[in-house]
């Protein structure tokens, strides 16, 4: 029923628009530009994604107050994917086909992105994906505003190697595509850097793992081989709290075995007494504690919007902030919300990020980001102990895996392809 009326309304609008443009008042639906928000508001990922939904509503409200885009107001369409990935694909289709949104902001996990990807490709719509991910992908309809491994994992490992003198590595992760691929890249990177295979321990745990006694005591034993040891954690979601609790209880101090995490931010730490964790590390492209006027204003606006000064900001929120602003700029530049026009217009556009730098959309649909390493403080915030001097451009295909080293993504003419093989100079040469 809804589907029918929406379609007929559109038809009517199109007809009215073409035939009686100057005279007829435009239908209400044409007054707004619709943006889809595709996040889990229930289920295991709700803990992280609900905040992103609120962030998008906040950004849209701010943009509307500033006059919207192309002189029209932006209308958010929120759907709940309930941490259910097939459902995510269905709802993505519904957003594009039924609700006629012009761009979608959403997903957190890689499996969510992978399952909605074909929908956006088929329907030629836009997805802005705000979370750090494993790389090895570049798709014409997707914009990756989170970090790729070379913007997070590799610099973090470099930091540990150079500043902390780490020689022995535990790669601990949750058992799914992001940790697996990231650890594959890291393992190769470490081996290339001359780390012996017996000095690398890789460990996977299921989602929501809560009994960490054995693994933490294994880490302790692994770290007692007389070489400086660090843990590189790609543990995701709920499993982090019991993991850090066990670390604290078993007395693993950051001075002895530091843990650097890629999925633990301010939001995850807010449910946690961080006193035993002081000094453990996280690598991100944004921290709430970064002292810039842009960030201060963003935090103040966000806390005013959400109505609580306890709410924190985190890296994926910044990614949405950047992604949304880039999309607005691209639409203004293209003069239309048409997907093809926006895809052409957005490459090369710049917008300030919250850490005092500039985010540029690259031809491979990734963006430039600074890399920051922070130490956890007892108030749940991070203290930046290291940062890259320049912005790091996101690399879609890792240079450290032999199967992807010769691949490049470039969505501008003349290459126009997500997996261009620089050796054979052809497109799609490697299996994705």
């Amino acid at each position, binding site marked *: 029923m809804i589907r029918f009326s929406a379609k007929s309304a559109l038809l009517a609008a199109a007809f009215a628009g073409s035939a009686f443009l100057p005279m007829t008042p435009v239908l209400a639906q044409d007054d707004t530009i619709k943006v889809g928000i595709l996040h889990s508001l229930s289920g295991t990922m709700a803990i992280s994604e609900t905040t992103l939904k609120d962030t998008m509503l906040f950004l849209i409200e701010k943009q509307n107050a500033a006059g919207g885009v192309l002189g029209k107001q932006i209308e958010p369409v929120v759907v709940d994917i309930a941490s259910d990935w097939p459902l995510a694909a269905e709802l993505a289709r519904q957003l594009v086909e039924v609700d006629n949104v012009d761009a979608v902001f959403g997903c957190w996990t890689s499996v969510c992105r992978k399952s909605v990807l074909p929908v956006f490709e088929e329907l030629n719509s836009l997805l802005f994906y705000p979370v750090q991910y494993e790389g090895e992908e570049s798709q014409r309809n997707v914009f990756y505003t989170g970090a790729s491994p070379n913007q997070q994992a590799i610099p973090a490992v470099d930091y540990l190697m150079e500043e902390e003198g780490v020689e022995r590595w535990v790669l601990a992760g949750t058992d799914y595509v992001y940790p697996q691929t990231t650890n594959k890249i890291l393992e190769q990177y470490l081996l290339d850097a001359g780390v012996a295979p017996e000095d690398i321990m890789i460990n*996977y745990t299921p989602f929501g793992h809560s*009994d960490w006694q054995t693994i933490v005591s294994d880490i302790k034993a692994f770290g007692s081989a007389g070489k400086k040891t660090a843990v590189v954690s790609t543990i995701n979601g709920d499993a982090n709290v019991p993991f850090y*609790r066990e670390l604290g209880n078993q*007395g693993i101090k950051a*001075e002895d075995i530091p843990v650097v995490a890629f999925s633990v931010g301010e939001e995850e730490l807010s449910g946690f007494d961080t006193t035993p964790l002081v000094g453990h590390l996280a690598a991100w492209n944004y921290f709430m504690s970064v002292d810039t006027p842009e960030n201060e204003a963003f935090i103040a606006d966000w806390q005013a919007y959400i109505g609580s000064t306890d709410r924190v900001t985190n890296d994926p929120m910044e990614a949405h902030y950047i992604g949304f602003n880039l999309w607005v700029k691209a639409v203004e530049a293209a003069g239309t919300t048409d997907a093809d026009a926006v895809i052409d217009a957005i490459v090369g556009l710049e917008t300030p990020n919250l850490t005092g730098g500039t985010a540029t959309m690259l031809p491979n649909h990734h963006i430039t980001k600074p890399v920051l390493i922070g130490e956890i*403080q007892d108030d749940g915030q991070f203290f930046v102990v290291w940062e890259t001097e320049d912005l790091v451009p996101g690399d879609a295909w890792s240079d450290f895996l032999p199967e992807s080293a010769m691949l490049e993504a470039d969505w501008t003419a003349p290459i126009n392809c997500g997996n261009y093989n620089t050796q054979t100079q052809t497109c799609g040469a490697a299996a994705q």
Partner: protein
Amino acid sequence: MLTLRAIRLVLLALPFLLTSIDAARAQETDIPALVQSMGEASLRELGQIVSDLASTGDPAVVPALQALADGNLYLDEASSAVVIQRGSALSDPVSGDAVALGADADLSRIRVNNSLRRDIATALAGMTLMSDNPATRLAAANGFMARPDPANIPLLDEAIAAETNANVLRLMQAARAVTILGDDEFDLADRQAAIPVIASNAGRSAITILTGALSTAPDDLKPAIQSALAGLEQERAVWGALQNVWFGISLGSVLLLAAIGLAITFGVMGVINMAHGEMVMLGAYTTFIVQLIIRQNFPFLLDYSLLIALPAAFFLTGAIGVGIERGVIRWLYGRPLETLLATWGISLILQQSVRSIFGPTNQMVIAPTWMSGSFEFYGLSITYGRFWIVIFAAIVFALLLLVLNRTALGLQMRAVTQNRRMASSMGIRTPFVDAMTFGLGSGIAGLAGVALTQIDNISPNLGQNYIIDSFMVVVFGGVGNLWGTLVGALTLGVANKFLEPYAGAVLGKILILVLIILFIQRRPRGLFALKGRAVEQ
């Protein structure tokens, strides 16, 4: 390196310097200035200031360095004064006098990173080895052991001679031995003699230290180190197995706590209660609220907030359980599929209401001091949190047995489950007993929730992680038998922990599931099957 040596020499000379008042005075003059300069320093400059302060060798710098390492050293942006803040009290970092700042004071913490923390620990170790507090001396000896330097030997010798506490003495001797073993200035006999001292005194770090020393030691020393290592490794293998048993018991006790309430509602009453996990979750949120109230109103009770939360969680979830039984489940007795769907619906409603009220993010329950950290029991390292949970699970189990076997309510419960009509004709109010039984099962789930705040997230999804495991335990142990639940939980816990090191956490879990499926194929009624006519119904 030269400057480091110089620092050590100054440190060593400390006792003599103190006797010379003039020298001490001369140094004291620049300490406040150095401390004050920490306010605006970058991380690198801080490192320099810390080593400058350490090289004064004056005990007056200890409070400032300690506060810096603990994150208690602040800069007042308004007056650019550096002060120590503990609680709400402000004091001067050098003199220790109370400081009053203007109304416009804007305190920001002077932050340190890991490598600075290590430097400070080393610096402090030298100055606090003679402290009056055994814990401080222990920390100092640990610092020396972690960062051995031959220049420290005289200092250690002096401390060892004066030491009265046996534990601290052992560690000091270990630190001395580590230093001697690691430096080729000492002759071989001394280094050889150091090896057994390390093996016996250095505790769990002995293997680390000896393995590290093995790579740099001359060939003459290697056999001795290797044999000491072999002995330690063998010891560790034995203790490792025992440690696994302990991990298994501890995992089993968590499973037991989560499952035992279900053993009553599902096992005794035959109700498939999918909302059981949410009762656990509500118990955890009750703990959160109780702690919040205590923190705001009665901060001195904070350490006992978990104990206070126990009855609150029990009665709250019990009451909700009674409500669910009276409102929904009693209309569905004998229709397992409808019960399953209805309770699943209830579980979704409860989850989403909690999410709407408290938000989707994790809530924080602070571990009381008596549940933080760990203790060594011979070769076992046992964390206090897990230890108390095992004890708590045992108490809950014993109490439940007592209620079922020794009270009138327990008798009626058993009567109603075994033969409802007969019990009814004997004058037992069966609907009342049903409600009470369901309430008891739910209340115990609430108790489990209180315990789980210490190991898991307090989020609306908390219960979902445990519902599958709980059903698994009850079915495996044998429906309708509390002892079966106990044995089932402990068996699964220990089996899981023995599989985990070999198969990994993911495969371990799969293997356990496969084993249970095979087991249920052989014995459909579980470990402890009920016998008799009641079973045939």
